[in-house]
């Protein structure tokens, strides 16, 4: 990976202002958003928005034509710009024709996308193009880029702002926020009154009525569209919707998801040209209104069968607000105008595919953004697809390719290598953890111990196991790589509980890696091979259920396999049968283990929700109920469903970010005072137990199955 990105990451992680401001915002955002949505049906609203926006994307060209006709009927001039360059040239021409010396702008991401201000200053005689959104103005004055789509200067402190404003106004200003805001009002007010042209963006463009909808809080949007006698709107084709009534659901969600407001202070809906007062004080009955409807990669996006989904974005930036990586590194690391998860996708189409190919590495795949997206965009899936295309285009490092194609698809070779590793690691093992690895592997154990590979994997410890008394059902145990070779004791615990529930349990020996590392590294053909091997291995046993302790494996076998074979009906039918039998351990025990009797454990426990168990499988109540039944005292931690920073190979690729996220998790765990951390994911266990061990903390990490097995009455 480019060292530039790595440097940016390290700079961001070491910037206390940034991580402090972002972290505080991230924590305050969720409860505030919750409150703003009180009494609203978020699922129903986002379903409507997804329909509105996908319909609009489908009919983009027809809607653009309808919008143009309607807006021109209402006295506006519409220019269709194919590229950013065309948009810039058109606006520059207007400035020259009207001899404009001073321009004011209200926030427009589209103008950031094409670096409009720079262009106008270099290519026209304009003296000033002033941003008027407070955050944008701060950023403009200090020559930075916005770090967040909605809150561009979120990374700066009042002290820094005071310094910047002091320099601009030639006076010594105190770091007092109210006073700084007043300085901005006074300074920008002069600019509003002398500007001949105002440039704004838009949040929605309605084809039916030629209406542009704009949301602002400060009032700069109203001033920009009211005071100067010439108004230019720069709007991307993705903002189009078909009907005026489509505005409703979008306005219900946009401010709530963006800033946890029920509505922004000002919402302005402009359907054509309106009167203005020119600089000499004369009334102009119909002012010049120019609408630049910009494509710049949007049609290409629309024509992509997968990525057209990203056009459902309403630019609320909630995917940034809930992203554990964004909270740690902020927007500048993304290096372009659009930041965070959606920014990675937009960057690929609107700016640079290569850049986006690098950025997709930042995603942990914790799925949190997907749960909050008001446009119902499956961002994690789009990012995986971006990864796949990057690999296809640029190829995979040879070593990685070799491992995936030659080793992972050959189960016997793969497993024998793991067994060899268990011997080779011996010099580094203390107890059953690895604290330090030599040379270039050392990053892996930075701030986190690794668990040792067991010398006797689960497949050598268990086999077919029958319960005492009547058999209720036959269950196949799917271990997953970590469950088989790193944490066999979890599997033994699960066996004990399942037997006690009256289940006959078998271990299909030909089961192998579920394939997620291959999918994540952009090698779907390897993932398909592994899927077939697992399906065959599991079919042979003729079982009623397939139970696993690993939520990621379950998600893969239950859902991804169906996708792998969507164009292969024979394998799809086989995958469906397997999918129907897959069930996670806590749900299975909650459903079939109602007769289980427990001794009271009386340990104090806090529970960590793994991303995939909670958000991919929707399981979070069951383990809590089971643990309570086993007599533990459960204390909830702050951010119990915040990602631990593991993310599979992520912790190897992005160890710095992974560790920063892990540190926050550990603090939250410690604050509960619990002796035991319970969880339901071997990956999370590896990450968190490793972090606790490296810090020398005396908190045990146990899988729910282990605690239940410990409490079970013989």
């Amino acid at each position, binding site marked *: 990976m480019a060292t530039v990105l790595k440097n940016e990451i390290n700079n961001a992680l070491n910037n206390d202002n940034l991580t402090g401001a972002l972290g505080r915002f991230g924590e305050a955002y969720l409860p505030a958003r919750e409150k703003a949505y009180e009494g609203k049906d978020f699922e129903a609203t986002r379903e409507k928005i997804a329909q509105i926006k996908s319909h609009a994307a489908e009919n983009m060209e027809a809607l653009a034509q309808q919008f143009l006709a309607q807006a021109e009927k209402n006295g506006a001039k519409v220019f269709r710009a194919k590229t950013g360059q065309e948009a810039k040239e058109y606006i520059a021409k207007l400035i020259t024709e009207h001899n404009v010396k001073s321009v004011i702008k209200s926030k427009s991401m589209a103008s950031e996308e094409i670096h409009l201000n720079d262009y106008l200053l270099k290519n026209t005689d304009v003296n000033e193009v002033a941003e008027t959104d407070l955050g944008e103005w*701060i950023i403009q004055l200090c020559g930075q880029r916005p770090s967040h789509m909605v809150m561009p200067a979120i990374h700066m402190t009042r002290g820094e702002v005071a310094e910047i404003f002091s320099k601009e106004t030639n006076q010594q200003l105190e770091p007092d926020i109210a006073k700084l805001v007043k300085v901005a009002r006074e300074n920008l007010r002069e600019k509003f009154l002398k500007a001949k042209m105002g440039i704004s963006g838009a949040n929605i463009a309605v084809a039916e009525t030629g209406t542009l909808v704009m949301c602002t*809080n*400060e009032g700069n949007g109203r001033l920009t569209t009211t005071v100067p006698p010439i108004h230019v709107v720069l709007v991307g084709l993705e903002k189009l919707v078909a009907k005026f009534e489509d505005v409703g659901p979008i306005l219900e969600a946009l401010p709530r998801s963006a800033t946890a407001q029920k509505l922004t202070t*000002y919402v302005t809906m402009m359907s054509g040209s309106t009167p203005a007062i020119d600089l000499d004080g004369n009334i102009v009955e119909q002012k010049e209104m120019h609408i630049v409807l910009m494509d710049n990669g949007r049609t290409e996006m629309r024509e992509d069968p997968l990525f057209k989904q990203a056009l459902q974005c309403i630019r609320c930036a909630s995917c940034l607000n809930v992203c554990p990586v964004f909270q740690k590194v902020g927007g500048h690391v993304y290096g372009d105008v659009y930041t965070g998860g959606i920014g990675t996708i937009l960057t690929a189409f609107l700016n640079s595919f290569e850049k986006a190919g690098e950025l997709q590495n930042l995603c942990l795949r914790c799925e949190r953004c997907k749960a909050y997206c008001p446009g119902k965009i499956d961002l994690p899936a789009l990012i995986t697809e971006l990864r796949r295309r990057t690999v296809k285009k640029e190829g995979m490092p040879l070593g990685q390719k070799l491992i995936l194609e030659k080793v992972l698809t050959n189960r016997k070779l793969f497993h024998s290598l793991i067994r060899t590793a268990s011997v080779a690691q011996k010099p580094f093992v203390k107890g059953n953890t690895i604290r330090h690895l030599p040379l270039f592997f050392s990053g892996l154990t930075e701030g986190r111990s690794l668990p040792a590979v067991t010398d006797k994997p689960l497949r050598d410890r268990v086999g077919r196991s029958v319960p005492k008394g009547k058999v209720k059902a036959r269950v196949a145990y799917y271990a997953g790589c970590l469950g088989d070779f790193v944490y066999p004791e979890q599997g033994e615990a699960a066996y004990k509980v399942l037997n006690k529930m009256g289940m006959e349990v078998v271990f299909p020996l030909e089961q192998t890696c579920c394939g997620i590392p291959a999918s994540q590294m952009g090698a779907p053909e390897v993932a398909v091979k592994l899927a077939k091997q697992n399906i065959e291995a599991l079919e042979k046993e003729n079982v009623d259920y397939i139970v696993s302790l690993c939520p990621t494996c379950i998600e893969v076998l239950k859902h991804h396999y169906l996708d792998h074979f969507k164009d292969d009906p024979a394998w799809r039918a086989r995958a469906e049968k397997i999918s129907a039998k897959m069930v996670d351990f806590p749900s299975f025990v909650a459903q079939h283990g109602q007769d289980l009797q427990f001794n009271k454990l009386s340990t104090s426990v806090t529970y960590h929700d793994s991303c995939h168990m909670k958000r991919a499988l929707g399981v979070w109540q069951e383990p809590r109920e089971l643990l309570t039944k086993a007599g533990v005292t459960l204390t909830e931690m702050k951010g119990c469903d915040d990602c631990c920073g593991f993310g599979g190979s992520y912790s190897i690729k992005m160890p710095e970010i992974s560790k920063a996220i892990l540190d926050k998790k550990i603090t939250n765990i410690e604050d509960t005072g619990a002796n035991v951390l319970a969880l339901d994911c071997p990956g999370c266990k590896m990450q968190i137990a490793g972090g606790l061990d490296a810090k020398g903390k005396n908190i045990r990490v146990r899988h729910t199955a282990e605690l239940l097995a410990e409490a079970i009455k013989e």
Partner: protein
Amino acid sequence: MTAVQDKAEKSYNEATGAALYDRFKASAELLSAEVHRAANMEEARQLVTQIIKDLDTPKVVYAPSELMDTLDVKSIGQAAGVTMTAENLRQQAADAGLGISQLDYAIAEIGTLAGNANSIESRMVSILPPIHMAVIRTKNILPNLLETIATYNEKLGELPRYLTFVSGPSRTSDIERVLTIGVHGPGRLIIVFID
């Protein structure tokens, strides 16, 4: 009376106006707006006079409109001893202490005002001065945003070219996420309902 007004009146009556008003007041006050109510035109004149006197500002700008004319806001202000103007607003509104304009609807659920702002006067007086007073008829309170959009949607041919929605005074949280009232727009929003 237009169909739009008919609908507003009907919904007001059905959901009992008092409840809608109370709901609006609570929502708007959460956004730091100041909400007043007058039982009739005469009471409204007294209320507006009092507010202007209390503000103690030499110059007030206003935007003529149907309700503003009925209220005769110009005479009220002059009687209170302030300069009242509705002209040359690029200059006058910029240094006035108060701007007064009419808005058409109030949205109870979220404390928002909405209305036709085609006239340049109504936009200048509501956004440039540090204080904005909005006058509105109490019968025009709608329950929520979706119904307001639907109300305009019924008469798309009459859709104002500049339709504005205002929720409280101007605000920002752009520095350290600290809420600060009064940035580019007014720092106070005073709403006067007239029954």
